[in-house]
């Protein structure tokens, strides 16, 4: 899968080297950098579906990116309604799509 991360930012410079950890999206391993958020890791891996809506089952994903809109809520290590855009990754974390209310 493509890596969408910025390796060398024109203003901020080269990305710092960080320890790699693995999270599991629907059981599938996704590589992440320690300290980044779940939403960031998933987005970098090209994953766009974080949850589905209650009424119509439509997919939703990263939207506001700052913990307000609740579109990025997922089931993380069994805990529902976790806002993945403000939740840092942890090695071995299991991240599941949240279907409707949970």
């Amino acid at each position, binding site marked *: 899968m493509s890596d969408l991360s910025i390796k060398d930012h024109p203003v901020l410079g080269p990305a710092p080297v960080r320890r790699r950890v693995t999270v599991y999206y629907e059981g599938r391993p996704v590589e992440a950098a320690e300290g980044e958020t779940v939403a960031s890791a998933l987005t970098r891996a090209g994953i766009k579906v974080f949850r589905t809506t*209650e009424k119509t089952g439509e997919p939703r994903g990263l939207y506001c990116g700052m913990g307000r809109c*609740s579109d990025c809520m997922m089931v993380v290590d069994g*805990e*529902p*309604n976790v806002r993945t855009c403000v939740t840092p990754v942890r090695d071995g974390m299991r991240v599941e799509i949240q279907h*409707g*209310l*949970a």
Partner: protein
Amino acid sequence: MKNESDFLVLGGGVIGSSVAFFLSRTGAKVTVLERGDTAFGTAGASGGLINWITCAETQMGLFMRSQSMFEHLQEELGADFELNYNSYNMQIISNEIEWKASEQLVKDFKLPGFEAKLIDSRESHQLEPSVTDDMLGSIYVPRVHYLNPIKLALAYRGAAERAGAVFVNGAEVTGLTVENGRVVGAVTPTESYSAGMVVNCTGVWSDRISAMAGVNAPIHPIRGEFVITEPTVKFCNTTISSAQYQTIVQHPELFSPNAIKYNLGFSVEQTTTGSCIIHGTREMNSGLDNSVIPEVIELLIQTACRFIPRLGSLKIMRTYAGVRPGTPDGDPYIGLTDAVQGFCQCCGHGGEGIALSPATGEAVAELLTEGSAVHCDISRFSPDRPAPAPEV
């Protein structure tokens, strides 16, 4: 003539909207003046529980008539107000003292067809797996209903408008027009309205309107606070409360000073959207301030998590407080007064406004169009009844 109606209803809450519906259904021309918007005040900050076991005996006639009207009210009003009809209420009993008080309550309160019973902890858990293990049992109260109060007010309003009633929002009444001992209308900062009869349905603000008519009808506001959680999957089968509202009065030594100050009860309902409404405080003579007191919210949350541990994992979406229109003797003011003509009182329903709204609207419409209330005896709610002796 502009702004002229048969009936001018002041207040667009659940009571005013109900009165407007039942009056306009008779073909009368009805105008409703509301200072904010529908359900802007108390109706917009209420729990939706309709529970006979906590209804005052004096109001049982109105209550019973209302509860039978509720059964088909959604069809009648042509609107869905999330009515959960004939559900039950579980009141968690935490200790022996509460168990004894609850036994007495259940024994004392026997109406045909309305019989609460005490059930043990095992049976309580079978009905409601989400409640705490740290309980002796609960009071099982059958024939309890719950609904969305804002949608109820909007349902009355919609049906009233279809019957020809006119609702004017942003119309704060600043004075009544009184001619020769008769109220003949009301004025707002921009308009004046005239009517054959003015009906005061302004709840917690009604004492000000009463005073404008020269009528003394004291209101003692009772503040209650609310916590709304994020939506979650259905885990509450019905409304869950605590029986501590009895012990907090009889055994205050068991409670913290703040719990007593704010008359801490507990009630939770999970709405059709999945959010939980946690409430249950009753701060007597609170004044009209409806700002949220953080220590009350903290008390409510602690209580909620104790009785229903799962609530502890939910995020809080918002909090708010509302004031209910209490009266010195606890009964509403409904009816005409000898003090002034052209003025009908319909206010002071305390915490029962939602529950009593159908029969109240019906009774006022009957009184004002047929001369007397047919379905309920409302004579005891006369605004001219003697004031209770002050408590020593």
